[in-house]
């Protein structure tokens, strides 16, 4: 339960309130992880928060986290310039189902900062590109200046990712899609028999995206979502992250939509 000290070796500002940090352990081996897992990050005296790992699982030497500053702890973490020390516990949680879906068309459906926990899955899949059918990214954000990893999308496309990006609204200089990410689903021309979906974003966005996917015939058993509730310990002790019969930090955060759906339908569960 005691954090390991890590030091910030690189800090990049992604958007007005989001930054990406690269960390290295102060002592000991790098933190190995599977795509979709998270750590509990502590800043000195400002509390501890769960943050998805957004780095490349094949290159764990640097622990990468994309953090949105919305409270005391995340603001302190985001404020950490190179040389600052953070506490890290983890990795916790279960991974995206990247192993065992060989031959499938894989759709990554992300909204807002939800692309951060999916980035490790994208990198893992691209490194093994020949094992899969289509790799499709459907990514929705609020506005062009709030999209993550824009500079990487080109490289990912070259490596065989079909990237479709949309924003809720934009100025006239934006040449891409405008509209909700659900509209991208209908345009993607998916083959439901071969498609597996991994989704992360605001819960409302995921519900509507799944609705569009199931309208296109993708079965709920092959749609996976990463869930979030108030998480405090990360290890199944504090009780906060309960969603009905499941503890998200322990049994999730990745779930099959077919398991989740009945519980998400209950208001205020």
């Amino acid at each position, binding site marked *: 339960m005691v954090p390991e000290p890590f030091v910030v070796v690189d800090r990049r500002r992604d958007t007005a309130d989001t930054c990406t940090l690269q960390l290295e352990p102060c002592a000991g081996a790098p933190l190995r992880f599977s795509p979709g897992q998270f750590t509990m990050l502590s800043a000195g005296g400002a509390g501890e928060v769960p943050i998805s790992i957004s780095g490349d699982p094949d290159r764990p030497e640097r622990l990468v986290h994309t953090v*949105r500053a919305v409270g005391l702890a995340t603001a302190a973490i985001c404020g950490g310039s190179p040389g600052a020390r953070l506490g890290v516990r983890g990795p916790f949680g279960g991974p995206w189902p990247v192993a065992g879906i060989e031959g499938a068309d894989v759709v990554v459906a992300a909204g807002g900062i*939800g692309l951060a926990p999916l980035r490790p899955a994208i990198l893992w899949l691209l490194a093994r590109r020949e094992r899969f059918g289509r790799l499709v990214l459907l990514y*929705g954000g609020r506005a062009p200046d709030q999209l993550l990893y824009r500079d990487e999308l080109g490289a990912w496309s070259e490596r065989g990712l079909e990237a479709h990006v949309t924003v809720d609204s934009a100025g006239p200089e934006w040449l891409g899609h405008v509209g909700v990410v*659900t509209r991208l689903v209908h345009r993607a021309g998916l083959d439901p028999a071969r498609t597996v979906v991994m989704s992360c974003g*605001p819960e*409302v966005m995921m519900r509507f995206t799944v609705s569009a996917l199931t309208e296109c015939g993708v079965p709920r058993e092959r749609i996976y979502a990463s869930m979030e509730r108030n998480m405090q310990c990360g290890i199944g002790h504090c009780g906060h992250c309960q969603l009905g019969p499941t503890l998200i930090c322990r049994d999730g955060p990745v779930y099959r939509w077919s398991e989740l759906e009945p519980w998400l339908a209950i208001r205020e569960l």
Partner: protein
Amino acid sequence: MRTLEDVVAGAPLLAGLSRSHLGLIAGCGRNQRVDGGIYLLREGEPADRFFLIREGAVALEIHSPGRGAIIIETLHPGEMVGWSWLFAPYRWQLDGRTVEPTALVAFDGACLRGKCEADHELGYQLMSRFAANLVQRLQATRLQLLDVYGNDRALR
């Protein structure tokens, strides 16, 4: 070589219409090629046409002083642009600008309205399809309205 009727028959919104109805609709249409950056519709102007996009893209915009033009939706090949031609007072409610060089079928809305008055079955078929499209766009718009990326999803 695809005729205009073949193109019209291929539009998802018009799927399932009878050949004779498709013929009536195609009779009100003509092919058009437009450069990028051209305004096909302007807020407040008479809505006497609507468009089927064959290639390219059209951005729907609302202009507001101080903020300039804000794109609130983009439409793509296979999609219809405009429904204000079907409902009084027959005036555009926002701007529509081609994002890039665009190939369209432009339909004469007044002409087609007349044909719908004469053939109520045609009118019913078109109304129900446009209504279904409106429902989808309304739901999508509601989701945009929630601004889900604005205040949610902090802790990742």
